[in-house]
């Protein structure tokens, strides 16, 4: 069920991160938030996460670094990267690493929800 989907949100901006979390929370998803990519990689959530939404530019490891790391551990886990400064170079790198979507901020949470639902229902259908 989509409502039980476990979504991980990574952003070093507290307000942006918590506001997205609040939105997914309001639609009944399980949400975990992380201030840094390293925090998610070290947490118990990574193995059971259904979806990752991450900022591109962060102190410490960037969204691309996280994507790269996630690919080695969970090759199929969908990752969405968001950025306010989307360079073509970053987009190309992300695509090469198999990003699910590369979105420009500000990102409408409704759109994000549609995206997650599409992926997860598609996922469910394929099972």
């Amino acid at each position, binding site marked *: 069920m989509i409502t039980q989907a476990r979504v991980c949100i990574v952003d*070093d901006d507290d*307000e942006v991160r*918590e*506001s997205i979390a*609040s*939105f997914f*929370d309001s639609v009944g998803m399980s949400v975990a938030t992380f201030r840094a990519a390293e925090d998610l990689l070290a947490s118990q959530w990574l193995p059971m996460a259904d979806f990752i939404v991450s900022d591109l530019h962060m*102190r410490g490891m960037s969204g691309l670094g996280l994507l790269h790391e996630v690919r080695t551990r969970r090759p199929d886990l969908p990752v969405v990267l968001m950025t306010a400064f989307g360079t073509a170079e970053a987009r190309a790198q992300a695509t090469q690493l198999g990003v699910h979507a590369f979105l420009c*901020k*500000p990102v409408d949470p409704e759109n994000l929800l549609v995206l997650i639902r599409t992926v997860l229902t598609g996922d469910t259908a394929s099972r």
Partner: protein
Amino acid sequence: MLAICILALDLRQSLDGAVAVLYIAVVLVVAPLGGRYVIASGITAGVLTTAAFLTGHLSHPTNGAYSRFVVSLVAIGITTLLSLRDRSSRTTLGEQARILELSHDTVIIRSNEDVILYWNEGAELLYGWARHEALGKKSSELLRCEYDDPDVDECLRTDGHWSGEVVRNRRDGTRLVLASRWLLRRDPEGRPVGIIESSSDLTARLRSDTERLASERRYRAIFDSAGFAMWESDWSQTVGAVLHAAPPGDLRPWLASHPEIVGPAIQAGVIRHANQAAADLFGVRHREELAGANLCGRYLESGVGAFSTILAALADGETSVEAETRLKTFHGRVADIVLRVTLLPESRDWSHVLVMAFDVTERNHARARFEQASAELAHAGRVSMLGQLAASIAHEVNQPLTAIINYAKSASRWVDRDEPRLDEVEKCLASIVSNGTRAAEVIGRVRSLARKAEPQAEDVDLLDLIDGALSITRREAAAQAVQIVWNRPVAPVPKVRADRVQIQQVLVNLIINGIQAMVSSTGSTRELCVYVKVLPAGDVAVHVRDCGTGFPDGQGTTIFEPFFTTKSDGMGMGLSICRTIIEAGGGTIWAQNNEGAGATVAFSLPA
């Protein structure tokens, strides 16, 4: 010895005469020794005469013996008295001769034949001939005396004296002008026997008079031809007006708050004379028009403050003081002037005060234009800087806006649930408010930087300004993967007097420069360190240290020159503007390469 011989002779009585009269010789011999010796010898002679008379004639006195005895005593007495008087007049004469010797004037005594009989030290000094060289010479031949007065002889004959100017030769051939007084000498019968004259050198006096005159003329010429306004005033009434009215203590603030005292005090100062530049400054045609005038009506309100400073300083014993004020010329033009007031020497009563006035109107206008240009350049720098930061600023505003939209949509979802969660809605609304505030703050900061306002000095907390500058540049740092280390002191630092916006501009500029210096660097550490130091003098210094490539050698100072840049797309005005801003605030800015990687740019401002 002589007295004993006379006594022996007297006692023999074989000589029938007044032997005792011979004691006169003793008195005369002793006379040069002094008054006391004369008296003592007189008394001794009297006593010995009496003793001899008593010894020889007491038993059978004769009339002859008596008369000889009395004649001897009288003769001895008269001799003693005459010797005493002679001695006293010798003393007087000796003193007078000594005075003649010591006189700085020349004293010469000439005979009827013009032969020099006396030549004092003054004459030796002035004419150059020693006494032994001059004595016996003819005065007219030696001194080549000339005088204009044709009636000298006539004057001497009728009045017995003459005085006037003579011109004479010195030994070295130079001519001397002398003021001379001649007195005709006469013998006891009244016949002229020569001339005694006393002269003083007029040449030296004439020279000093001439020099004084020349100096006076020089001063006058400088005064008249000076390119700046100058006038000499009599402030003797001013000093009274001020000092009588003022209470003891610091005069300046008291005067500044009592224009009713300062006004009349200025009015009491009267111009003696002024130069043409002063006439030009006040807008009158002839400088004579200023003489006798006072300048009370010419000074504007600000004059009270300037004159309080001047009067207080002069009353305090200073002889020269400077103050700036404004005055209105007779044409109505308002001029900024710097007054330099000097008490002329020996003018303790302020009766001779020299006032110099420098018209600084044009200078002040130029300074104002420069300040305006600097402010405009600084503003242009800020706008350009904000342009560089546009992406960062947009992001800083976008973040809270994103959060607001998310919270709003989230709240809507919480309400739409089968069981609306109002507690969550409330959280969302609170977050919307705080994020709205955050966005407004960013915009406010940007707007204050973009605003074109006159620089205003106020007490500024540098720690707050650093916080603000870092919040604007944070995203820029993040975008370049630069870690900002801000060692914010726990204790407050002294506030500095500066323009908040311009210092903020300097901080942002230095931080951006530091970040950009690390963009091209290949070093592993990308750290920008900001720290504050309170210097021993109390100034507060802010250091911005990067780990970039540093400055090329020897460019630690040239980086502050306009158009210096290491960036291909830079104008090179940023640091130049920073220096203008910091130095205008009385501070200094400097830069140096670190011992390790990168460079540190720092500035300090007085607390």
